[in-house]
């Protein structure tokens, strides 16, 4: 498996030529094959944990601090959840890479693009197969770095480099919390572990011991420390997975190429946060407080992001908000204790979200704009794309039998099952359910705006047509997956995979056997959303909210993203920067000024003192006589006093 990472890394250095893209695709293909094989292996034998590790660095035992020494390792672990994720990453990665060949062919800097993309995939793969928290963090940071590069790919555009910076900074806040979370867990568990293993410290934060969590039997408890640790991990995940209130970077990250957006939203960057929560939940455990908090964040994000998607005119941003919203579902599931359910949704979501993005990309590629209100009637010329987008939309809206239905339904069902034991989950469950409606509405609003009608609303748009096979193959493949991935749940081996991973958490979810009433409700809500969208936007209609409408301020609030970004910018630009300027002033004028003041004081003193050198010898004689008197004063009064006082030298 290490070789796999190496392949990804090596790939980054080979992109100097025109056919570099194909090399990258080749490597991604190789990765895909390996990934699928590994995942298949895991599915065929769900109980197998493959764990290989090397010492990264090691400290000798020191009494008190680390009686058994301290070690950091790098290693790979293939267990059910990493197998699942591996599948997602490699499949989506390969398809996006293939799609890029055409989508990006007119761009400059392609070697850079493929190198960064390969590194991105490699980092994500590394993250997924990490066997310890430290290594996890290492790749986590690398993922952040690559996303920084890729979002800022069009670095000549100020908005792109600004968005890249924003993404990096916001996720950095999360990273910092994650790091602290690691420390807290580490501190709590540093000596814990199986007997004779030397504890967590001596084993480099590893998750597993055979097929058991390394810390099995030592976890649990409800200490403040663990709660804080959980909150910190949640913070890290919120940063990466764009959860409230650290979600602001994700819509802006649309400045990158659409392929990158697809990758970030489907398989790599944002998935990392959810994956982190899942790993933590399975192997380290959250306290009840944490769980509630996670559920809350998930629920709020689900609804909150969906509301913003409702009004946005930019096709990519609508999808971006939908990602945030869907991630909220996953977080919700993990919080409620169903890590594997969340991951299952991540799995399906990856396919239909990649599908949505790639179809949107095809549209953008064809018409050269992202503004929904300029599009229209594209259904006629872009049949494949329109169909793909519709499939993706249906999956997103949770309409059976598309993949999204199975996973989202599982989430709602699982959380619902917990409501009895945890009545505090109720409000967030309601938010999540409301989110279903909104989701269906906004995604079909987008579909109708773009594809329905007779012709584009903006007549200057170029004549659009479906792309070539290099772009359609991924679309078709993903469409197939978006339709079919959900059915995997009925394959016992796959279910076993999920159950085996989930079994650790101790709460068996009910895959495939959902609460019918609940399912019906959610499907109904989804259908209602679609219907509303059709009513307002169908057939090329444009619904204009009257200026006098009472909801106009709400719309404005939503369009301005609740003013959160503006607030953050204000804190960053005005607040922090002003402090920095003030500090700079202090540094230059007060600290340095004090030093210079001393200097000037000496100079002035020196200048005054110089005047005693008058050149008149009589004055010098006077100094001698004065000195004589001074010496007598010293000898007769001062010195005896001092000697009597302190006893002398």
């Amino acid at each position, binding site marked *: 498996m290490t070789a796999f990472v190496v392949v990804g890394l090596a790939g980054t250095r080979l992109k100097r030529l025109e056919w570099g893209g194909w090399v990258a695709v080749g490597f991604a293909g190789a990765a895909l094959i390996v990934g699928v094989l590994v995942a298949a292996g895991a599915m065929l034998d769900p109980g197998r944990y493959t764990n290989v590790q090397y010492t990264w660095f090691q400290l000798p035992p020191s009494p008190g601090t680390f009686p058994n020494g301290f070690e950091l390792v790098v290693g790979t672990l293939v267990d059910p959840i990493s197998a699942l994720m591996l599948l997602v990453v490699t499949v989506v990665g390969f398809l996006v890479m293939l799609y890029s060949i055409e989508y990006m062919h007119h761009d400059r800097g392609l070697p850079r693009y493929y190198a960064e993309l390969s590194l991105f995939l490699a980092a994500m793969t590394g993250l997924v197969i990490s066997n310890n928290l430290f290594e996890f963090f290492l790749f986590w940071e690398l993922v952040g770095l690559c996303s920084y590069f890729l979002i800022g790919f069009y670095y000549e555009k100020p908005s792109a480099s600004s968005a890249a910076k924003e993404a990096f900074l916001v996720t950095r806040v999360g990273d910092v919390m994650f790091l602290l979370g690691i420390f807290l867990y580490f501190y709590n568990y540093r000596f814990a572990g199986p007997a004779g293993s030397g504890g967590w410290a001596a084993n480099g934060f590893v998750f597993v011991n055979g097929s058991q969590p390394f810390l099995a039997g030592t976890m649990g408890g409800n200490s403040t420390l663990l709660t804080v640790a959980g909150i910190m991990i949640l913070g890290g995940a919120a940063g990466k997975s764009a959860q409230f209130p650290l979600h602001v970077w994700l819509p802006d990250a649309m400045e990158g190429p659409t392929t990158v957006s697809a990758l970030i939203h489907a398989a790599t960057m944002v998935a990392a946060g959810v994956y982190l929560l899942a790993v933590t939940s399975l192997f380290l455990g959250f306290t009840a407080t944490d769980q509630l908090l996670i559920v809350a964040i998930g629920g709020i994000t689900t609804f909150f992001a969906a509301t913003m998607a409702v009004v946005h005119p930019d096709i990519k941003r609508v999808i971006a908000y939908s990602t945030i919203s869907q991630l909220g579902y996953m977080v919700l599931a993990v919080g409620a204790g169903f890590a594997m359910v969340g991951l299952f949704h991540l799995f399906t979501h990856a396919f239909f979200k990649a599908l949505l993005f790639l179809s949107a990309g095809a549209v953008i590629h064809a018409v050269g704009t992202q503004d929904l209100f300029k599009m229209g009637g594209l259904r006629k010329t872009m049949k494949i794309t329109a169909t793909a987008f519709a499939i993706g939309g249906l999956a997103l809206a949770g309409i059976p039998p598309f993949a999204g239905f199975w996973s989202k339904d599982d989430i709602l069902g699982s959380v619902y099952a917990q409501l009895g034991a945890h009545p505090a989950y109720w409000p967030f469950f309601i938010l999540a359910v409301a989110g279903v409606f909104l989701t269906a509405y906004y995604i079909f609003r987008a579909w109708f705006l773009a594809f329905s009608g007779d012709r584009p609303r903006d007549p200057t748009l170029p004549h659009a047509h479906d792309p070539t096979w290099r772009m359609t193959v991924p679309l078709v493949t993903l469409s197939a997956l978006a339709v079919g991935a959900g059915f995997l749940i009925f394959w016992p081996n796959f279910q076993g995979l999920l159950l085996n991973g989930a079994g650790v958490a101790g709460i068996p979810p009910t895959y495939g056997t959902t609460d019918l009433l609940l399912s019906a409700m959610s499907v109904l809500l989804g259908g209602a959303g679609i219907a509303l969208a059709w009513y307002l936007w169908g057939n090329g209609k444009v619904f204009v909210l009257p200026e006098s409408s009472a909801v106009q301020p709400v719309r404005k609030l939503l369009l301005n993203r609740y003013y959160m970004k503006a607030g953050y910018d204000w804190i960053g630009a005005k607040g922090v920067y002003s402090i920095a300027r003030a500090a700079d002033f202090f540094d230059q004028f007060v600290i340095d000024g004090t030093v210079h003041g001393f200097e000037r004081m000496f100079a002035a003193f020196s200048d005054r003192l*110089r*005047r005693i*050198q*008058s*050149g*008149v*010898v*009589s004055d010098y*004689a*006077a100094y001698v*006589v004065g000195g004589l008197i001074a010496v007598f004063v010293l000898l007769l009064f001062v010195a005896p006093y001092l000697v009597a006082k302190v006893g002398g030298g």
Partner: protein
Amino acid sequence: MTDLPIVGFVGLSAALLAVGLFGILTRRNFILLLIAIEIAMNAAILNFVYFAAYAGGTPGLTGQSIAVVLVGFGATEVAVGLAIVLALNRLKGTINVARATELKL
């Protein structure tokens, strides 16, 4: 001799020293300065003579011999001083020490 009051004698030489110092501080004429210095010097010579007689701790004429030596030394010193004042007068045409202030600050 041993009855001589020490305070009185030391006071006398101290007064002589003070006169000399006063002269050094107030006069600007080089010759007068020389005289003032010699007055002060005589205070020291007087002391030696006096203490030789009064304290008498050691036999012999130590103090008195020192006094004689110092008188001779004073003469040498004045000679050197006069050599300098002559050269100064020739070059600058004045023996006022306050006029010689080329070197200062």
